[in-house]
């Protein structure tokens, strides 16, 4: 009762207390890992990589003057929410934070990240591909050090496609034909899923047809170009809309318990995935015991001019609340800067490295994956996909843009609007939002 009365009078209090940023705090005090050299400078790190503790221990073992104090503050948005609150309140952020490259400009525009160009970022620029470096830099400024990438491929159930006599699609036309063939054969599942909450996944599909949704440069932070209803995006979305209408693909939300089960129980024969997808699949339970997974390149619109796409990928940034920015920059640059660390990252966390010494190594190219029956998926699929990646520009309000995209796509698959209309509405709402936020539209 008492709590109820408090709740009654405190609608704002709850929100307000949260708004004032009570989460400020003792980032240094609680490390998940054990610090063996207590006299060295401690750098607090937020990251959610699997098997990251081993990487941290390795770093701490090899460094005498800097020690990492690691916390898992949640995955993706959960972490960003905490970081965003800490930025607003002015305290409570870690020294180094794992961020996906798509949110870098959302935080750099709030002066939350340190320009690493002043802390020797250029020394390591040569260790990364041009596309990867473009994602973390803006003009001369460097806001993060790349870690892993998400070049896309197509993971498929060989057993299911063989059973229904369907060839592995190499173009999107073949993909649609395969979906029809699977349905006609009376298969219990569908060929693939089109998740309306796919966010970066859907964006990547559009990008394959030449979509450049945002033009944005941190050097001119108040000006933005928005073009989400271009012809390429419209043709891609019309394609998926038709597949949805014909009942050839599912429209389940991604990253739910249902979706995870369907991924591995044969409900979808194909999982169009990023390079971290195999790791994701491997971590799911209730897998079909007879499943036979293989990887192939992502289908193309025009096989004569293949376009490679990327979904996700993460970086380490130094926050402007870091006390010892020099030490923090060392951590950002070096934590995934050794072959040993990367062997943990590749074998235990299924990360796709952007660090060239390992990316271009024979070890990585020839690595055989038991999950894929010993297929060398890097050589076959992901390395060529990564080689074609030239970088991508995201908006400084990417979370909002994704939420709007999800809403429009949902309205589309519900039959409330056509695919063109959905993208036109998205364009209008993003333009309005950008104007409200004080940007000039290019």
């Amino acid at each position, binding site marked *: 009762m008492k709590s109820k009365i408090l709740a009654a009078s405190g*609608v*704002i209090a709850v929100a*307000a207390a949260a*708004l004032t940023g009570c989460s400020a705090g003792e980032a240094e005090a609680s490390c998940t890992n054990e610090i063996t050299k207590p006299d060295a400078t401690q750098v607090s790190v937020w990251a959610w990589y699997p098997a990251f503790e081993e990487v941290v221990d390795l770093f701490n073992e090899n460094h005498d003057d800097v020690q990492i104090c690691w916390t898992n503050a949640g995955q993706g948005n959960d972490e960003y*929410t905490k970081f965003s609150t800490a930025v*607003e309140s002015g305290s409570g952020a870690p020294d180094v934070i794992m961020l996906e490259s798509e949110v870098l400009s959302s935080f750099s525009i709030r002066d939350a990240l340190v320009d690493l160009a002043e802390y020797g970022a250029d020394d390591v620029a040569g260790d990364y591909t041009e596309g990867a470096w473009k994602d973390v830099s803006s003009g001369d400024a460097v806001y993060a050090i790349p870690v892993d990438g998400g070049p896309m491929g197509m993971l498929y159930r060989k057993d299911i496609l063989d059973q229904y006599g369907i060839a592995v699609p190499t173009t999107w036309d073949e993909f649609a034909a395969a979906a029809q063939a699977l349905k006609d054969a009376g298969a219990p599942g569908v060929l693939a899923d089109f998740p*309306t909450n796919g966010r970066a996944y859907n964006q990547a599909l559009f990008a394959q047809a030449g979509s450049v949704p945002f033009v944005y440069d941190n050097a001119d932070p108040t000006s933005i170009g928005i073009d989400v209803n271009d012809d390429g995006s419209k043709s891609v979305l019309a394609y998926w809309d038709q597949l949805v209408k014909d009942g050839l693909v599912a429209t389940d939300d991604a990253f739910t*318990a*249902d979706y995870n089960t369907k991924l591995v129980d044969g409900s979808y024969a194909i999982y169009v995935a990023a390079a971290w997808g195999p790791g994701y699949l491997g971590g799911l339970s209730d897998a079909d015991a007879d499943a036979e997974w293989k990887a192939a390149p992502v289908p193309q619109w025009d096989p004569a001019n293949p376009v490679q796409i990327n979904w996700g990928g993460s970086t380490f940034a130094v926050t402007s609340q870091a006390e010892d920015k020099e030490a923090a920059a060392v951590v950002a640059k070096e934590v995934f800067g050794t072959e040993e660390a990367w062997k943990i990252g590749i074998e235990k966390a299924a990360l796709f490295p952007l660090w060239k010494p390992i990316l271009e190594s024979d070890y990585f190219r020839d690595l055989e994956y038991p999950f894929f029956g010993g297929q060398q998926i890097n050589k076959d699929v992901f390395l060529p996909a990564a080689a074609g990646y030239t970088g991508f520009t995201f908006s400084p309000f990417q979370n909002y843009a994704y939420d709007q995209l999800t809403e429009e796509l949902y309205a589309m698959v519900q039959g409330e609007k056509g695919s063109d209309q959905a993208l036109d509405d998205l364009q209008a709402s993003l333009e309005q939002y950008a104007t409200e936020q004080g940007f000039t539209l290019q």
Partner: protein
Amino acid sequence: MTTHSTLAAPAAAVVPARPARRRAPRGGSKLEQRRQRWGWLFVSPFLLVFALFLIFPLFYAFGMSLFTSTLATGTKFTGIDNYLKAFSDPLFLEGLLRVAAFAVVMIPAQLIVAMAAALVLDTLVTRLASLSRLLIFAPYAIPVVIGALMWSFLYSPRFGPGATLFDLIGQPTPDFLASDTVFASLVNIVTWQWSGYYMVVIYAALRSIDPAIYEAARIDGANGWQTATRIKVPMISSSVVMVITFALIGTLQFFTEPVVLRNIAQGAIDAAYTPNMYAYSLAFSYSQFNYASAIAFSLGMLVFAGSFVFLFLTRKQSGLK
């Protein structure tokens, strides 16, 4: 008829008040003053916490809501602009309409279930009655987030019992999380969780009615139904008013259940589904802390005004007049 107000219904809240009243001072104002001083001293820990965690954040949020901060141009003082924007913001207004619709459906649903259960349990005196009381109350003991998570699995087309049940009657399984069914699914969760709690409040009020009244009614020839509708319900009207007030406030602040279900139904439940969710997304997903404060404050004022008007209109029933 006992006339003490049941607005603070649970016995725990009423009992300590009584001895204090009995010992109320009759004489010297000096003694009274000393008592007052001691009273303030005893209340001060509460006041301190109250000021620190309620009054101060309220003013802080209000202060924040008077500024506008945009991503591109920084922060500036804009007075009540955020409030003007809020009350012309279709997302906020749609959210308000939605919670109003929830209030219209959910409050009667909870009240009817709670009232029926309480009236039945009040007339039963078997051991089964106390067990039923416990079972009906049990959902309230489950944390809201856990309850909503549990229901999200029950609603799941894959893990839930829906498919099995509808197979039995040969019907296709409905999607409990589609845009047109998620409303009912949410009503169901809230009713399940809170009816038991309201039942206990109403039941407690029913137990405080003097049994002699029932006897008198029986002598006058009233049957069970008449006793329930003509005597019991009117006599517990103050508790009912309180239950409705709580339910109203809870509904206007609707947040946790839709947030949890949003994890599995992002299309059907958007980021601005209820005003509270809108404030939350604005602040923590889109970093618009100032506008979020204005939304939260506007909602707070509406909740306050709504509860005040309701309590005013029902002052007779609740014994507040």
